């Protein structure tokens, strides 16, 4: 069963990773959800699909009061990212969902109404959580054409959506990347096939290299920390993406 692990804490500012669900049906891709808590407010990053809602909800409730959820950050429009939206709204009807303006009229197919969505413009925006200023960082075409990552400059954590994703075998169940070269083998095919634009990738690598990042937390697979963050960025910069095979 999914559990929330605290990956960062300073006073009442915390990050939780709700990672790895060994009990979910095998035909559903495994996802990580992240919760940023600051004082009385919480933001859920990429809440996941309908099928895993009960597991995510209970893992989140075990660590923080779900009525304190102020918003949902949806990196893009995929079903494994946000198809559970209607269920979160069922729980909290006034929840706000931050997503690219590109998907503002697509996501209501999963749930919500006009007032639910806060469109993020292409250059990104600041998302305030109590006194904390989180940054929506553009990551368009990686892989979705309207795609954002979420940066917490105080915790130095970058939530990177599908970038950094690895489809790990069941026995690789550590929360963090332990052996980069062993780990990255499981990320290669995914990035080659899902990431469509080499130009967007180079631009992202260039911008992100200049940011201070202690942890790069992806939506699938293990978390990169310390030296592995730059190692990943370098690896990604050199990878040929947008290829069908090979």
């Amino acid at each position: 069963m999914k559990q929330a692990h605290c990956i960062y804490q300073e006073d009442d500012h915390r990050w939780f990773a709700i990672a790895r669900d060994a009990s979910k049906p095998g035909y559903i891709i495994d996802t990580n959800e992240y919760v940023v808590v600051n004082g009385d407010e919480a933001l859920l990053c990429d809440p996941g699909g309908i099928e895993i809602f009960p597991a995510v909800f209970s893992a989140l409730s075990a660590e923080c009061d779900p009525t304190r959820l102020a918003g949902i950050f949806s990196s893009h429009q995929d079903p494994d990212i946000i198809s559970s939206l209607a269920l979160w709204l069922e729980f909290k009807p006034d929840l706000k969902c931050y997503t690219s303006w590109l998907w503002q009229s697509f996501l209501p197919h999963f749930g919500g109404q006009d007032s639910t969505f806060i469109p993020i413009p292409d250059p990104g925006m600041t998302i305030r959580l109590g006194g904390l200023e989180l940054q929506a960082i553009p990551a368009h075409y990686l892989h979705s054409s309207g795609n954002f990552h979420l940066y917490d400059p105080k915790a130095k954590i970058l939530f990177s959506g599908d970038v950094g994703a690895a489809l790990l075998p069941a026995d690789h169940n550590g929360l963090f990347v332990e052996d980069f070269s062993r780990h990255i083998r499981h990320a290669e095919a995914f990035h080659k096939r899902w990431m469509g634009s080499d130009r967007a990738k180079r631009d992202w690598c260039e911008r992100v290299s200049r940011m201070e990042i202690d942890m790069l937390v992806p939506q699938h697979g293990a978390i990169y920390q310390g030296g592995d963050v730059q190692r990943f960025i370098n690896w990604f910069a050199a990878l040929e993406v947008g290829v069908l095979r090979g």
Partner: protein
Amino acid sequence: MNAPDRNLHVKAPGVSELARIVRVNEEIKAIVSTAFRINLMALNAIFLAKRAGNAALGFGVLSNELRRFAQELTRHMATLRDMTSGSVGSVTGVVQQQRTSAILAEAIRLSGDGVPGVREARRRGATRLAEQQACLRSLDLRLRSAVEETQQLVELGGVLARSAKIEAAYGGTFSPALMQVSTDFAEVIAQIKRSLEVLGKERLVKD
């Protein structure tokens, strides 16, 4: 908990409601096409009676009545059809709400009743479901009474068909042709009656 087991927990009930709507719609479509056939048959009967002239005056009057009946039946079917197409929206709402509530209930089961906000969420879901079901139930009642009205109309059609048979006997040389037409009428009306009986037994919501 193993995977298939968890899937069962969140499996959505209520898919059969949509299947029921589809059955009702199909039944109505069948009656509509039969009603259209009656229309054509009545027109033919009118022409036949004209050709038979004085020998088939009574039959002529009846075939005019049968045509009016067929037109009335078509109107009834249009009303029924409007009702069911509207009900697809209501049924979809119920199915969605049932699925949402089932998944939310599973989430509450896993996290325990003490989690803040879950009781309110459950109550909201239950209220919405009850509203949607009430809406569907009233639609079901309206549909049933519309079917009953149509059944009464078809009874009248049956009487007309029987009288047409009697009048056909006085049709002289046209008698066999008139008899054939009125027998066809009777058969088609019997068919509509059977369809309406099936329709009358369908329920959009379980009692």
